[in-house]
């Protein structure tokens, strides 16, 4: 058990994380945090292009948690108001990064890993083609944007998306990813 929040702060600072949130996340909360992040980066003299990129990754990743986290509040409810997850924004070795994590059902693991592995090896032009293909295919369905969000992240990230899946128990795994700007 963490007895002192200062220890947590030191741990976050060591990772370069200047913002980190863990818990139930909502659209309203995300909008507020997004505003603060933009201000913070302005104070840091980040250029407007970088600010938009970091902000867009923050939104896509937060909405990914909101739509797809398997950990809901209240637990087990299908039409839950809140989705739980963790999201962080940091600056490390001259690059900004955005990282998120949430619980997923074990049945979803293979398809997520397959999608992200496929994106990792695509170059800029391939990502663009794939983005347009997926957008065209899904455009008339009432989708929450699954898949397209990952491609968007891959296109904006200067490095391939890093991701990790860790089995928690027979039902759930913890999924996390990181993008770099």
């Amino acid at each position, binding site marked *: 058990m963490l007895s002192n929040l200062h220890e947590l702060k030191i741990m976050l600072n060591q990772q370069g994380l200047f913002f980190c949130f863990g818990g139930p996340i909502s*659209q309203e909360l995300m909008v507020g945090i997004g*505003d603060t992040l933009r201000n913070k980066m302005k104070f840091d003299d980040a250029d*407007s292009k970088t600010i*938009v990129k970091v902000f867009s990754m923050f939104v896509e990743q937060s*909405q990914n948690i909101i739509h797809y986290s398997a950990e809901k509040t209240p637990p087990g409810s299908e039409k839950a108001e809140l989705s739980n997850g963790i999201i962080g924004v940091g600056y490390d070795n001259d690059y900004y990064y955005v990282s998120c994590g949430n619980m997923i059902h074990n049945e979803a693991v293979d398809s997520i890993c397959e999608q992200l592995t496929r994106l990792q090896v695509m170059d800029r032009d391939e990502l663009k083609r794939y983005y347009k293909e997926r957008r065209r295919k899904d*455009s008339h369905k009432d989708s929450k944007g699954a898949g*397209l969000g990952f*491609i968007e992240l891959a296109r*904006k990230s200067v490095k391939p998306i890093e991701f990790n899946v860790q089995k928690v128990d027979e039902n759930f795994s913890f999924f996390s990813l990181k993008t770099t700007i």
Partner: protein
Amino acid sequence: MENLNIKATKHTPEVTFDVDKHFLELKGECYPENITNFTIPIFKLLKVYLQHLEKQTFTVNVEFIYFNSSSSKMLLDLFDILDKEVVNYKKNIVVNWIYNVEDEDAEEYGEEFEEELESLTFNLVSKKYL
């Protein structure tokens, strides 16, 4: 047919749909949790409006600071509808994609929409923000 005006919020754009002036503008941020719910009234009015549109030029301005990936699908749906009106009924429709001159991603998004369209006039308009 009544005009549609929706005020901007931090995560949804200002919508001005003036049917008498043949003008639709979406301006601001666009990353709601559910884009479909947000755009229902716009698409509903658009459908009726397009049935009434004859020789006049319908101008559609889209000026987004940021839009999320599901809004990108919504935009493609919108442009597809307009494109079909031009292709099938020879309607006069002009879309202005207005973007920050310093944001090359926003310019690229515009180009990528343009590539998807057959006959719709789609102008990329760069704007300098202070």
